[in-house]
């Protein structure tokens, strides 16, 4: 564990004079030395605009760009031409909304999402629905955070043309029933878009095995830099989609009145790319591979189990979603009775503990849960048993600060 923590320099900087306990990994993770070095090396030694220069440096930069694509493709078991670099999951989802949703959805069609979606997998679909005259329909999870088979049966029908859902909820931490969704989607010919922003650092994402049509994720939640993300799209779907952003590098030829576009994936990569970020993403994937899924999952599950058991033992805590740690992929959201989440977060912060308080970009879910906001603790591979113990102990003092007896 120490060797993992040593790779993240930010962990050794005290916060409020205390050892930093970072439990806001669902917002963004820290970056290991190998990622920082990959970005630094790129700008020190390999900086050139890919796909442009015929000179050696330009070729090297292009190689880094395309090698990163191959690394990302292997990471999710896709072909390189099915990998589009974006700035984050949000841009990736918008790309699908604009180049697929706006193009292929019609009046009377239904777009199905869950009420637990992050705004980035919700607001774009509101726009598509408004623009195309299609209808935005919601799936509602049960109290354990799971979407039942009955709910899927009720909501997926021949009018359903597109289903967009988070692989793992960024608030509840629950995995969506992908197999059940895919089975019904195939029956009716609906496209399935998977938002993997929250899952990608906690479990393997195999797009072929999952059988989804699109998958989106951000680098910055999986130890890579901010500003780099990935959209996976099935080749046959990408091939028939019009461009999203237009400009340099996404064209085949340009004339005064008309243009033809490059083949995928370049058709969807307009302008100069974030190659430094791509180098960082590739390094992050290699870093995760070097640790291995088994180690990551065993360690994170133990922390989730410890945190959930600790929270369940505190009588004045309400945990949202499943109370079974096997259903929790890196995230637990909760509230302290009578204490606003912001006050809870401020009190934890005074002990160097960073948690998120607010609506977590999931306001419809907050409404559905009947709360305005909540506190979220989310973990990564560098968190320790001690982190969770200090978090639970400090949480035990929150109500006293707010003038309650206990």
């Amino acid at each position: 564990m120490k060797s993992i923590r040593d790779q993240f320099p930010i962990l050794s900087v005290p916060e409020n004079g205390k050892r930093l306990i970072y439990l806001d990994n669902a917002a963004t993770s820290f970056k290991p030395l190998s990622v920082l070095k990959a970005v630094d090396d790129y700008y020190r030694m390999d900086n050139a605009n890919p796909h442009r220069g015929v000179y050696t440096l330009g070729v090297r930069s292009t190689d880094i760009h395309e090698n990163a694509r191959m690394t990302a493709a292997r990471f999710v078991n896709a072909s390189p031409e099915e990998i589009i670099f974006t700035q984050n999951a949000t841009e990736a989802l918008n790309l699908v909304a604009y180049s697929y949703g706006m193009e292929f959805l019609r009046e009377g069609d239904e777009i199905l999402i869950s009420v637990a979606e992050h705004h980035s997998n919700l607001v774009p679909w509101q726009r598509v629905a408004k623009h195309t005259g299609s209808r935005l329909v919601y799936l509602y999870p049960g109290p354990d955070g799971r979407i039942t088979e009955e709910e899927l049966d009720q909501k997926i029908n021949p009018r359903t043309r597109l289903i967009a859902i988070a692989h793992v909820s960024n608030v509840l931490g629950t995995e969506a029933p992908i197999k059940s969704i895919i089975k019904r989607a195939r029956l009716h010919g609906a496209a399935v878009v998977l938002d993997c922003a929250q899952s990608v650092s906690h479990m393997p994402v195999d797009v072929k095995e999952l059988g989804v049509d699109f998958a989106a994720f951000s680098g910055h939640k999986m130890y890579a830099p901010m500003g780099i993300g990935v959209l996976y799209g099935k080749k046959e779907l990408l091939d028939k989609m019009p461009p999203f952003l237009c400009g340099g590098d996404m064209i085949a030829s340009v004339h005064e009145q008309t243009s033809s576009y490059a083949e995928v994936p370049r058709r969807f990569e307009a302008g100069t790319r974030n190659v430094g970020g791509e180098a960082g993403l590739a390094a992050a994937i290699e870093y995760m591979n070097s640790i291995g899924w088994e180690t990551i999952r065993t360690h994170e599950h133990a922390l989730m189990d410890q945190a959930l058991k600790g929270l369940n033992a505190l009588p004045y805590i309400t945990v949202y979603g499943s109370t079974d740690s096997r259903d929790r992929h890196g995230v637990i959201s909760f509230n302290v009775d009578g204490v606003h989440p912001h006050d809870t977060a401020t009190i934890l912060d005074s002990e160097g503990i960073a948690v998120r308080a607010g609506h977590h970009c999931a306001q419809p879910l907050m409404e559905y849960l009947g709360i305005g906001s909540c506190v979220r603790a989310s973990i990564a591979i560098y968190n320790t048993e001690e982190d969770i113990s200090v978090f639970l102990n400090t949480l035990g003092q929150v109500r006293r600060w707010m003038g309650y007896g206990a």
Partner: protein
Amino acid sequence: MELNALYNQIIVENSRSSQNRHKVSDATASLEGVNPSCGDDIILELRVENGIIEDAGFTGEGCAISQASASLMIDLILGKPVEEAQKLLQTFLGMIKGEISDEEQLEFLEDAIALKGISHMPGRVKCAVLPWHTLMGILDEKETENK
């Protein structure tokens, strides 16, 4: 950061006090104030007669800081002329921004001075100023109406 300076007795007590947490009958003005980033949401209602704030109350949800701030603000402005409330409002915002530290001037804020510690906490400033910005919205609107 010293938690004692933030969650002092006045703030904790006011955050849970129900004295000013009510609707205002025959309100002459009301405004909703929202912090979109955190979801804090208050509705401030006033009854202004002949330039005097005769009644004021708030409803809504928020953290201890925004709720205490709303309660302390209402204690302060009740029964005062609108012009004086506007002056107090500017003094409060000046205190939170760290621009006013003159103790004689801050004394006019009475118990609301308990929120002074927030000026050192950028992450919570927006909680403390939410009710006051909402009040400013109402009073500015009133001023425009009168012109």
